């Protein structure tokens, strides 16, 4: 694995030496240090570390301001606070400023290394989910259509964008909750929805309610199956799905979330189905 690059932010040369020794003895690469806000910005831009250890009390600034400055440069950089100060209020504030872990000085080397490992394991798991989740959801839709309607489908497009899109008619939203939370969304025209519902019920739906209920359950099964497969791949995902919400209306636009989602368009015998899935990295629960 690539060496993890770390920057130490502290105003005490003694603390910097101590932290550097602990980190280097454990195989990490300390690529720089800083003691003021300006130095922090400079070293982050220059060295692009994976992780930063952050003191809370710094001359002319504080650990939280520096953390925000770091995340303005790169929101993916992980910050561990290493400070002599630690109380409920300050820990809460640190969490609100997207600090990943909080450790009190004097530093226990084991505690620090465990914290770093925990953060990096979570990063790795997220990347794994990012790469392996979408194929699983696509497969689950294909499998669901095949098993429930005895037909096949073809994926004709796949893309990741962060722009909003207009609904074709009916949108089903499933919230996903676990180690990382996210959502699955299915969008299709009312005509396609009617066709699928008819195939699922093996007759024409009696009314709109029956059609909507069939599509809701169809979507629920697909999301549930996909999450089960992912959980079997790694139980640390711990994914669970919330019940489906179905929306339809006039010129409904679905806004792009602030995390990456992937979309695929499936061509089925019933019409096109859009599937969109994404997970947010979120922050570690450490309180």
């Amino acid at each position, binding site marked *: 694995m690539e060496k993890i690059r770390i920057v130490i932010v502290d105003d005490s040369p003694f603390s910097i030496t101590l932290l550097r020794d602990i980190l280097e003895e454990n195989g990490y690469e300390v690529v720089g240090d800083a003691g003021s806000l300006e130095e922090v910005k400079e070293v982050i831009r220059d060295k692009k570390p994976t992780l930063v250890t952050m003191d809370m009390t710094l001359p002319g600034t504080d650990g939280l301001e520096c953390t925000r400055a770091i995340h303005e440069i790169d929101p993916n950089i992980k910050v561990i606070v290493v400070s002599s100060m630690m109380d409920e209020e300050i820990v809460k504030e640190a969490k609100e400023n997207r600090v990943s872990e909080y450790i009190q000085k004097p530093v226990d080397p084991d505690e620090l290394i465990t914290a770093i490992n925990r953060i990096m394991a979570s990063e790795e798991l997220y990347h794994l989910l990012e790469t392996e989740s979408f194929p699983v959801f696509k497969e689950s839709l294909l499998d669901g259509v095949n098993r429930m309607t005895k037909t096949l489908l073809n994926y004709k497009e796949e893309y990741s964008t962060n722009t909003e899109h207009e609904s074709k008619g009916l949108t089903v939203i499933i919230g996903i909750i676990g180690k990382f939370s996210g*959502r699955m969304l299915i969008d299709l025209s009312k005509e396609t929805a009617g066709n699928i519902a008819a195939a699922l019920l093996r007759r024409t739906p009696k009314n709109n*309610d029956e059609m909507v209920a069939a599509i809701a359950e169809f979507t629920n099964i697909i999301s549930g199956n996909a999450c089960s497969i992912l959980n079997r791949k790694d139980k640390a995902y711990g994914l669970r799905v919330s019940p489906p*919400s179905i929306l339809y*209306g*006039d*010129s409904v636009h*679905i806004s792009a979330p602030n995390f990456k989602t992937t979309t695929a368009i499936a061509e089925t015998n019933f019409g096109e189905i859009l599937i969109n899935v994404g997970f947010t990295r979120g922050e570690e629960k450490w309180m």
Partner: protein
Amino acid sequence: MDVKHVNPFIEAFATVIPQLGFKTVKKGNLSMKNSELLSSGVVIVVGIVGAIKGNVVYSVAMEDAKKIASSMMMGMPVNEFDEMAQSALAELANMLTANAATCFSGLGISIDISTPTLLYGENISLKMSSNQVLCVQLLADDIPIEINIAFEN
């Protein structure tokens, strides 16, 4: 569906809203609806799992959504419901639901929440999984925000 389950959402509203540049928080009507809701404007869906399973749907009229986004962005004028404004409203739903989850855990009910999904349009019909939906209208400086809570039993 337990009416008491609405309290954490009211509490969350009273905690979060004053932090976003609003001066007054008021409670409007509380009602039970069937699972089909109608609304125009902005709709934000948040999923919930844990000791309780269901969805919470926030609904705000378009002009009101712009006012809220403007207040959240320190009074910056919001003329279009653009990406920035959408992101502000999604974040509001996230903050309110996360805060309500904390209130629930105080009651010994542990829940987790999904990321919010935001949609907007006209004459939106919304079908939720539970047969009964608890709807509470809350006002931030007289701007009504409707919170629809559908929990499965």
